[in-house]
């Protein structure tokens, strides 16, 4: 299977070379992407030591800020309500051991 996979990759690569006029158009918007991925990884790591409420509220605030919400009142209000709601659903209703 590994050999087959390698063969496919090489074939694809060769084919791309041949019609190198049409390069694959791959562009990443690093400026938003990298912070988002970092933030999600941080959240995944922080849930265990920090616990649900602090890490989730922090995550919501920073994520919404990153995505362009700039009003502090809204940020605080939405993340507080959101965290409370999620806490109610997951921890109280579904009894997840967070």
């Amino acid at each position: 299977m590994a050999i087959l996979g390698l063969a496919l990759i090489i074939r694809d690569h060769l084919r791309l070379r041949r019609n190198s006029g049409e390069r694959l158009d791959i562009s990443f918007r690093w400026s938003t992407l990298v912070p988002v991925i970092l933030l999600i990884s941080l959240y995944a790591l922080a849930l265990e030591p920090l616990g649900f409420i602090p890490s989730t509220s922090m995550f919501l605030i920073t994520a919404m800020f990153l995505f362009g919400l700039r009003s502090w009142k809204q940020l605080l209000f939405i993340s507080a309500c959101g965290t409370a709601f999620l806490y109610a659903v997951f921890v109280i209703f579904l009894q997840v051991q967070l």
Partner: protein
Amino acid sequence: MSNFTSGFIQVLDPSVLLFCVLGVIVGIIFGAVPGLTATTGVAMFTPMTFGMPMSSSFAFLLGIYCGGYYAGSIPAVLIRTPGSPGNAATCLDGYPMCKKGQAGRALSLSVTASCIGGIFSAMCLFFFAPIISNMALKFGPAEYFAIALMGMTCIASVSGKDLIKGVIGALIGINISMIGMDSISGVSRFTFGHVRMMSGVSLVPALIGLFALTEVLSKTEKIGQDDIRNIDSFNFHLPNFKEYWSIRWALFKSCVIGTVIGAIPGTGPTIAAWMAYNEAKRSSKNPEEYGHGSAEGIVACESSTNATTGGALIPLLTLGIPGDSVTAVLLGALMIQGLTPGPMMLRENFGILSFFLWILIIANFIMLFLGLFGSKFFPYILAVPSKILFPFVIVLCMLGSFSSANSFFDLKAVVVIGVLGYVLLKLGFTMPPLVLGFILGPIIESSFQRAMIGSNQNPLIFISSPLSIGIYSFTIVITAMMYLRQKRDSKQT
């Protein structure tokens, strides 16, 4: 007959009905917000069904399934952005109709067509699943191997624009599934000496990572630049029976196309919608209307999209092989409930089939009701800014993957898989081959090993039974057909 009614009694339970309504609402929201799909919704909510009884959990998930497939047409009609790829064909006629000031009519057409398609396919599921399931009882490991191989090949050849990328995706999926202990010999593979890797990548985090987190990541790039479009107010419009009677053949054909395409593993609503649309256009009395707000066009797309729901459940319930990406997630949900999808499942719990039938019918009627009378609220769903919505979606993904096994390791796994999936998506891969490779990989492997052990290491067992030869030839025919179609399409463009 008693089988037919036994499920009905289960469905009448108020909590089941409540969860069904809830599911349809959640499904409509997920389907309607561009960037979130029914698959994302089902993947995110599957872990939450862990503590529910089977009936409520499936009422909820199938409600999301039906509602989500329908609701993709709402933004397609109102803002010309399909809520999910399956509804792209609806834009062609729905949006022009909306421009003519008939948005209410377009929405009512799409929800009624969806409902008819969904109910038609649920009936097909009920009548054909037992036949296929009886056939599947004759399957040994060798035939299973052939079926799983068929699933893989179809997926690779069907989904996505590029055949080779489909195959690579499926192989990557198999490679992910190989992590952990071998199911027969117990040798640990790709664990890097890490104890947590021994049990492999679990299904739910993998699905959430590949379907939900990947989608969210690919949308983050567009967040902040979404333009707010004005949606004109529209009036609520009741379906007109005469309108449907005049296009009954187009409607019927689209339902059949949707169900059949849905039942072929790995295909799904996108292909069904385009096929039904083209077929309806070809056989229509007035094809010149298409693209300028033809009612027939909307009905064809929407009925076939929702007809894939029942169709895709056929291979899931009879063979344990998912028909599309949502059923791949439902496979995980069935396992959470302690059921192993496969030929034995229907034999042991036949009631589940009639339960699915009734739930699908009721979910479709709830959808019809909400779609007709709730259409006033759709513009508000589309107005929720993504910068607020997406952080919550991410949190739900993370909590969902954690709660499936209460494992912090799964949380890290979901991030890694999500990022991997995102990079692949950017490189032009599609997720369904990968996921189905991940699900079918273990089936292929264990049935291969069992067949070899059972036949004293004689490889001829794979081609010695007429059943498996039939399955192989079917595979070759489908793959060849899809390959030719791709060639033709690429020549045209």
